[in-house]
């Protein structure tokens, strides 16, 4: 029998990052995308899900530059990306860091790809 604590835990202990893709849950009742995945939907409280894979393709929603505390700090760039599902039917917002040297390389709507990295969300620019 499960302990009370166990029965309260609703986190799904599954790896969400698989290479340059992210596995999340989509609510079968209302279509809500759950990332990080949980055992319930926070919109309709449903518990019936389909697994959907997102990435690596995405596009920049918005971006900015990091604050350099010291002059020697490396300038970083970060923002929000609209990441598309495998079948192109769904998208979800995902925050992360851009692998670029200058803010001039970034533009809203610019195509990007999620890079394979277990710990961080890093996006590289897709040049056409």
């Amino acid at each position, binding site marked *: 029998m499960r302990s009370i604590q166990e029965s309260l835990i609703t986190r799904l202990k599954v790896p969400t990052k698989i290479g340059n893709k992210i596995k999340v849950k989509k609510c079968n009742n209302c279509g809500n995308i759950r990332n*990080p995945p949980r055992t319930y939907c926070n919109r309709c409280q449903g518990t019936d899900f389909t697994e959907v894979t997102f990435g690596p393709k995405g596009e920049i*929603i*918005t*971006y*900015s*530059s*990091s*604050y*350099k*505390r*010291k002059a020697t*700090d*490396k300038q*970083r760039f*970060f*923002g*929000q990306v609209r990441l598309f599902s495998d079948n192109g039917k769904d998208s979800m*917002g*995902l*925050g*992360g*860091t851009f692998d670029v040297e200058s*803010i001039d390389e970034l*533009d*809203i*709507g610019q195509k990007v790809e999620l890079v394979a*990295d277990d*710990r*961080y*969300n*890093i996006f590289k620019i897709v040049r056409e």
Partner: protein
Amino acid sequence: MRNVAVVGAGVSPFGRLDALLYQEIGRPAVNDAIENAGIDRKLIESCYYGSCGGVGVGHEIMNECGMIGIPITRVVNACSAGSNAFRLAYMDIASGMSDCVMAMGIEKMKDVTMAVVGGGTRFQIEAKAFAHGSPMSGGGGGGGGGMAAGFALMGRAHMKIYGTKVEDFANITVKSRRNGSKNSKAEFQNLMTLDEVLDDVMINDPLTRSQCCPRTDGAAAVVLMSEDFVKKHHIDTPIWVKGSAMGSNFGGANERAWFKETGSAYPPGFLTDYLVAQKVYKMAKVGPKDFYDRGFVECHDCFSVSEYVHYEDFGFCKKGEGSAMINDGVVEIDGDLPINPSGGLLSVGHPLGATGTRQVAEIFWQMTKDKEVAKRQVPDKHLDLGLQHTLGSPGIGFTNVMHVFSRDL
């Protein structure tokens, strides 16, 4: 519901007050508010205070001010804590529970942490995924400048969608400093040129340092009364609360809801601002145009970008047309719609718990033509209506509070 009025206000000097005790910052604000109201402190039946850092400090201050034994409630709701305390004080009287209540706010920012929820929120999980430190954390890893990051992202989206210029945002600081230079309580009382704002240290593009409000310490208090008490105690300049509204929302892109409400795909603004403004206008039976005709505004300009999007989200102009509001002088003290005559959070400073009551104090003083605001007095024709607004982010989502005030019952 009963009618409720603000009858007095007091504000401590705002600035870096680390060396002072909470009591030393809060007591003058509380005592000034009572003196400004011209009442006996024994009339005050309860107190609500906003403070995100100091546990029990409002209790201590009220005790130090000789108001011992009354119910005292601390409100912790990030940047909206003071406004939220004011709203509870209003509800206390409107419900008939009390006749005279104090709303107060105080903060020493060194005691405040924004990491108020314990590590499991969506926001915090995502924050860990930023390489080299989260841009939202403000600390470690050189990631970013804290809250500025979110507003910078909003500003960039606005620039792309509507062609807004960095100068348009920066001009809001120029206006803020101009008003702040007339406010002896403000942390920053120096003027700044557009070039100085643009050439300041970059925090998160497009926000330079002076487009971000400072971490300021301070306190502000106001006294509220029922209509019965206003008459009984012969208060000659009551300022009536005509509307009170509050809402909450997830931070970040609530894209679908935003689209449904506004038709705009990505929110370069705040859906909650828009919705709470609609609520408070309805309760006060006013609309955005009424503020052009006879009102003014104290709103939450934590960053230049935030004041800019408030112009649009409150309905003072169409989405994408905020630039004309600042560039054409509409929002100046002598403009068509004065916004933040105090200098706002950008110049006065932003002690989280104190900001809301500080804004109410400004509105009260403006409407009663108090000597406190003599140098920055809003013209007569705009003193019929006051709009107060804060936008707080208690860790994960947003909490908005808005009030409408009037000289007429």
